């Protein structure tokens, strides 16, 4: 009701003749500028005998890509090379967001620690990582740290599990048979938890008894998949990376390989973004007035209940909006991958595919729309979460 009346007033004001004139001009101007540039592009494309179209997407790409999550080789189409790039971007963004969030919370909370050393160390961390240009940090991890690792034949091997060398990090690959049973177990655990939560809320309101739903959930998530795995005859084979020698060239084959370009990008994006998230976390916690905690104590909540039920829910409201921005920044910053040769969306599609096809306008358009879509999806998810935890005024 309030909003509508305000909107009506604004609209009325906007429609007054004196105010109308410049607004109409502005809209006409915007339409004209859009028209002008598209017409200009059309004329220039025509004059150079270039045709506009997306047919090229089904042509053979002809180039291989170093690192791909799906089955891709040079005989695949340009559309598939786009998918490879997109998945590589999402991969680094996904893990980047997880690591940056975990690191950010740890450092942000440490910034408020009463322990002098922890406090100062986290201060140095934040100031160092957020004040150096990201591209330099990427270069540092790639050209300084990773390039100084030993060569393949002199790899560092940790506990027969992690193999580290200049050409990548290798870990054993776990191959499951009948993996689907583990998945069934997980679904059952989630379903049971869902009903338990409903029941726990009811019990809490009726008899003030607290059922530790989260602890039970953790237990179920471990036990159910194990039981199902035993019942469904799930077998695990471990494939270790093997050192292979071809003349004088050494190579690790098999296992899971993490390419250095991916690692350098992941490290730098996570550390850079975590410094900003840490400050958001600190701000969020500091925003909760002391009175809230004191009131909570006087109502009989203990320390962990105060933190869980009073401080964190309120702090999250302050933390989430700026952290959304950081997630968006991380995703967009991942396009700096091209500088070190990680095959992300920008590198593969707006780079290699563009120069092989010459379809600059089409490809840049597709890539821009893709980043826009990814960003909007992240925004929508976090806005939804933000709304869910927002203060409900009664």
């Amino acid at each position: 009701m309030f909003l509508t009346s305000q909107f009506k007033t604004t609209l009325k004001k906007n429609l007054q003749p004196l105010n109308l004139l410049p607004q109409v001009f502005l809209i006409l101007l915007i339409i004209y500028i859009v028209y002008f540039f598209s017409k200009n592009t059309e004329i220039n494309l025509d004059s150079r005998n270039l045709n506009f179209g997306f047919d090229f997407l089904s042509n053979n790409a002809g180039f291989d890509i170093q690192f791909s999550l799906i089955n891709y080789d040079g005989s695949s189409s340009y559309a598939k090379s786009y998918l490879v790039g997109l998945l590589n971007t999402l991969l680094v963004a996904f893990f980047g967001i997880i690591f940056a969030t975990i690191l950010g919370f740890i450092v942000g909370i440490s910034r408020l620690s009463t322990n002098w050393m922890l406090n100062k160390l986290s201060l140095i961390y934040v100031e160092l990582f957020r004040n150096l240009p990201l591209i330099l940090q990427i270069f540092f991890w790639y050209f300084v740290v990773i390039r100084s690792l030993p060569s393949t034949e002199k790899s560092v091997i940790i506990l027969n599990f992690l193999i580290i060398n200049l050409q990548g990090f290798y870990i054993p690959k776990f191959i499951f048979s009948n993996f689907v049973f583990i998945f069934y177990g997980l679904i059952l655990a989630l379903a049971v938890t869902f009903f338990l939560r409903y029941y726990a809320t009811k019990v809490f309101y009726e008899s003030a008894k607290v059922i530790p739903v989260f602890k039970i959930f953790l237990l179920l998530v471990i036990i159910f998949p194990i039981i199902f795995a035993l019942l469904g005859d799930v077998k695990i084979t471990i494939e270790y990376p093997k050192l292979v020698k071809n003349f004088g060239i050494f190579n690790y084959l098999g296992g899971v390989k993490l390419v250095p370009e991916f690692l350098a990008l992941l490290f730098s994006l996570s550390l850079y973004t975590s410094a900003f998230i840490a400050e958001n976390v600190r701000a969020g916690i500091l925003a909760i007035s002391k009175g809230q905690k004191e009131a909570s104590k006087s109502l009989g909540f203990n320390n962990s209940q105060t933190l869980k039920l009073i401080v964190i829910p309120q702090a999250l409201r302050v933390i989430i909006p700026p952290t959304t921005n950081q997630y968006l920044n991380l995703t967009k910053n991942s396009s700096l991958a091209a500088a070190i040769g990680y095959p992300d969306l920008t590198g593969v599609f707006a780079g290699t595919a563009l120069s092989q096809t010459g379809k600059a306008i089409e490809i840049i358009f597709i890539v821009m729309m893709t980043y826009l879509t990814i960003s909007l999806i992240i925004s929508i998810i976090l806005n939804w979460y933000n709304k869910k935890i927002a203060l409900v005024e009664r």
Partner: protein
Amino acid sequence: MKKITTNSFAILAFVATFIFATFSANANQTRENVVKRGSLNCGVSQGVPGFSNADASGKWTGIDVDVCRAIAAAVLGDATKVKYTPLSAKDRFEVLKAGDIDVLARNTTWTLSRDGGLALEFPATNFYDGQGFMIRKAANINSAKKLNNVKVCVETGTTTELNLRDYFKANKLKYEPVAFTKADEAVAAYDAGRCDVYTTDKSGLAANRTKTKNPADHIILPETISKEPLGPVVRGNDENWANIVRWTLNVMIEAEEYGITQANIDSLKTTEDPAIKRLLGLEGETGKNLSLGNTWSYNIIKQVGNYGESYEANVGPKTPVGLARGLNASWRKGGILYAPPVR
């Protein structure tokens, strides 16, 4: 009221500027634009010794640079009036199409899809090359047929990248490409051990080997896996300009055939040989066909030299790059350089 009128006028003026301005790039006017500007905008590599490379003082030299200089000599009468723009393989065609450079002389391979599909024109070939592999001596491999499960550093957006796949696919060998946007980055990654093999055109291998920490540690494998005719590139909508570039190169090649050099060109002015007289601009009106003055070919030879001179000075056996003439010798000497007659 007064404020609104001023605003409206400002907007009107702004719109008017847009209506009367035209951004459309002018077709068929490259020569006129170069003459008007008084300098040639030439796209070159970001540093391939012998082909296009800037020294510490910023002076560009190389066989591709000589193509730029020769065009400037033909069109402007002064080989020094060139502005160089270093470009990555990935960006080169877009920059040319956008009109920021007049000609691209950047060891670019002439292929059907580029010539036909990218609205570009390849007027001539100034270096016949082929793709090869460089590998560390310690790898103990002497043939490209023995490359298997190797990591290969390559420059992205090149025909090299495509040939690489074709080669390994055809020979049923496994490899992993590590693609960089700059040739320098690919070489540095190979040198650091990120890759086992570095691949590019053989001329580029020889040139880039000089950039490794210890050039003697690396060998170039004997196999040539592709044809790479390298040459200057222009936009496809300007025939006059394409002709100027094509015949500039033909003059350099033909001058070598007739033994005209930078040093002896003035002493040849008294010659009776009509072909030489035409190249010196003393007979016929060769320049007229290209809308150039009649001294255009004289200026090229006098200021830049013939093809052989340019080759020997930049990539020949006496230079650090050290490439034998091979295919790039005149057809009279067992090579395939064969310029149509300048007449």
